[in-house]
């Protein structure tokens, strides 16, 4: 009977995405960078299970001619897949991988990566290497409008996937490493008009401006280069902010350097900040705190709380109350951490003397690449565990006096190398949501650098990938690998899942391709 059902469903064609759809996505669709507003990256789809995942086979591969290291998360709306490459958007038949249309921005500024799109109404939104927000017609890829976010010639660009909240497109900016101040914007989803801007670095006269010595705030950094989360009930956006600049030379910017290295809660209507929590005050290791804040409603010490959790690049796992920003708990999720001996009752790191960049180099664990990075974590409500990609290893961090040069030049105050004594090693780890205690770990043998983020499914699976190109399905309860496939190219993107006519697919960008898997019929 399946073909008839399939035909009926297929004729019910691709429809417009409403705000209600964005609030409660049909599990068959994948409408947000992180799946849903809460960014749990957990799909209720359960056709693929721990019992049958062995039968997962590639259904199609789409090759992007100009693709190199795709970091895009595909979106799926009623059987149409949208994914991005810098300056490009592709619309595919998600069942067959056949191209429907493609958009190519001209002239194209060559800069990457691009991490994905947002969808709303009949529109697809992307950020561009020349720092524009672009709206396309989802049906044929026609350019509807574009809004300049910032000056590309100053060095700004927009790699993050936008997020649509009500009639607004929320869009961040990169980078922090050029001494450019970050912000978060909201644009009218219909016209592209900018509605508000939140400045990551307080200007003179604003609260916390005095956390910057002298004029250092002018080149303070605090980019917003990854997509955040949203709580519709509280109407709050949660976004992580990037590092202060110059990255490694903190001497020229004494103070806490707010609001770099923060998780901030902003009113979605006005952009007004409700609270902030700073993970690394006066960061000197380039540990952008942009990692995805995951929103979970759960019991904390016996009472129900609206929690926000984040595995931070500085090595700590944080549990916050997302109504107030109150720090509840924090614990390292890596074993090699030498820069702080712990956290205070308020969540402020207790710094270890001397673990700051120096002229001849200081061993710093985690390395600047971080205990984790842009790889998305996942939360499975069934296990109650938070899953994260972790890197164990140290760096040798150096500093020197840098001069800010406008025009997109790097302003880092020198850098880091991998420690020759502790080679990096990648893991997937399951943490207890509220205690952060490691439940299991899966060592990605021979993988030292970041690759894929994670996807959790109701089939009891965690999907992850590694720098050698393997996409792997783990048992969410045990961390045991149940299935693995060599995609042939390094993975640098996040897996996602969708369904068409009752058939579940798992897809991921790998290198220059997008590949989709499903159970062998």
């Amino acid at each position, binding site marked *: 009977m399946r*073909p*008839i059902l*399939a*035909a*009926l469903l*297929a*004729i019910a*064609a*691709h*429809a417009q995405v409403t705000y209600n759809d964005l609030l409660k996505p049909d599990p068959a669709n994948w409408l947000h960078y992180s799946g849903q507003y809460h960014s749990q990256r957990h799909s209720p789809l359960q056709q693929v299970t721990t019992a049958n995942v062995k039968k997962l086979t590639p259904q199609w591969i789409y090759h992007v*001619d*100009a693709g190199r290291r795709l970091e895009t998360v595909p979106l799926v709306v009623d*059987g*149409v897949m949208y994914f991005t490459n810098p300056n490009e958007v592709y619309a595919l*038949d998600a*069942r*067959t991988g*056949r*191209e*429907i*249309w493609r958009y*190519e921005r*001209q*002239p194209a500024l060559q800069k990457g990566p691009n991490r994905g799109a947002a969808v709303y109404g009949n529109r697809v939104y992307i950020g561009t290497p020349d720092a524009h927000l672009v*709206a396309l*017609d989802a*049906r*044929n890829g*026609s*350019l*509807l*409008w574009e809004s300049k976010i910032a000056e590309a010639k100053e060095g700004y660009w927009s790699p993050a996937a936008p997020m649509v909240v009500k009639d607004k497109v929320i869009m961040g900016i990169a980078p922090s490493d050029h001494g450019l101040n970050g912000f978060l914007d909201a644009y009218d989803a219909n016209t592209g008009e900018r509605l508000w801007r939140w400045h990551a670095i307080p200007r003179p006269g604003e609260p916390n401006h005095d956390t910057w010595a002298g004029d250092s705030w002018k080149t303070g950094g605090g980019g917003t280069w990854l997509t955040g989360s949203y709580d519709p009930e509280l109407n709050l956006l949660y976004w992580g902010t990037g590092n202060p600049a110059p990255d490694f030379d903190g001497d020229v910017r004494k103070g806490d350097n707010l609001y770099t290295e923060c998780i901030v809660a902003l009113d979605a209507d006005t952009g007004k900040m409700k609270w902030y929590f700073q993970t690394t005050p006066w960061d000197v290791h380039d540990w952008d705190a942009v990692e995805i804040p995951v929103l979970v409603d759960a019991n904390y010490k016996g009472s129900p709380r609206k929690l926000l959790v984040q595995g931070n690049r500085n090595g700590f796992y944080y549990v916050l109350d997302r109504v107030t920003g109150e720090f509840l708990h924090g614990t390292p999720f890596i074993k090699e951490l030498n820069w702080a001996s712990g956290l205070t009752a308020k969540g402020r790191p207790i710094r270890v003397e001397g673990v700051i960049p120096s002229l001849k180099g200081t061993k710093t664990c985690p390395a600047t690449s971080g205990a984790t990075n842009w790889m998305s974590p996942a939360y499975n409500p069934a296990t109650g565990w938070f899953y994260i990609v972790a890197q164990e290893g140290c760096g040798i961090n150096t500093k020197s006096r840098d001069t800010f040069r406008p025009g997109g030049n790097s302003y880092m105050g020198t850098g880091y190398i991998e420690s020759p004594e502790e080679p990096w090693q990648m893991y997937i780890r399951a943490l207890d949501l509220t205690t952060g205690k490691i439940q299991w770990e899966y060592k990605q043998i021979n993988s030292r650098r970041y690759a894929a983020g994670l996807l959790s499914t109701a089939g009891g699976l965690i999907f992850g990938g590694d720098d050698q190109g393997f996409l792997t399905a783990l048992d969410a309860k045990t961390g045991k690998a149940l299935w693995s496939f060599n995609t042939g190219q390094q993975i640098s993107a996040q897996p996602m899942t969708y369904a068409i006519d009752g058939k579940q697919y798992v897809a991921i960008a790998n290198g220059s391709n997008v590949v989709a898997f499903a159970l062998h019929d």
Partner: protein
Amino acid sequence: MRKAPILCVLAITCLAQQPRQRGGRRVRFDPVEAAAGHEIYNRSCTMCHGLDGAPGDRAPALGAQRRYLRATTEDIQDAIKNGIKGTNMPASPLPEADIKKLVAYIHSLRATAVDLDVPGNPAKGEQVFQAKANCAKCHMVNGRGGILGPDLSNIGAERSLAALREALTIPKPIPPRGYQPAKVTTTNNQTIEGIVKNQHNTSFQILGADEKLHLLTADQIKEITFHPKSLMPADFDKVLNPTEFQDLLAYLSRQARSRR
């Protein structure tokens, strides 16, 4: 930049599926010099090249809708003055001033419509586009209009004036790829009419006249009827009076988003 498709089996297919010029670079030339160069060209170069820049018996077209290796003033000048080694292209004995005019003419052959100051009233042309010619039913310009036909927001920077005029007056022998009109009957007897965005033995992607995407697998399809002709009318020189037609050309030739 994407590469243009290299293989075209039939010349006619090439023409229909010819990729648009991306129109990033502006070609500058003096129209008076170009007109003079036209005369010199027809007098001096057509032993091998064709008349008016067309392909000739012994040498290629200089004004074809393709990318040319020698596109800059310096490169074209060099080819005329010094010939092209290893080919039949000889060094020209023409005086420097004539070569300059020839270069202007070759630029004009390759210019996109926006490079010319196409006469007519663009504002009135827009009204023709929206109303009498009904172009906006299928074509979008700057975010407004239909979606069945190609977006024309940059057409003036992608096509020559001759190609624009041709598109409005000469029916395409076959519909371009991505714009083939078709009617599909599914196995459960639903019909969808629209344009084919993509197809293969195994699946079919059609943008319906309802302006929705319909994605079908082969086993869902009972019958597909392809309409032999493009939906694009090609009688605008008859439907519109000469002034309206010229105004429409003036409007279309100025649609050049990539030049802004």
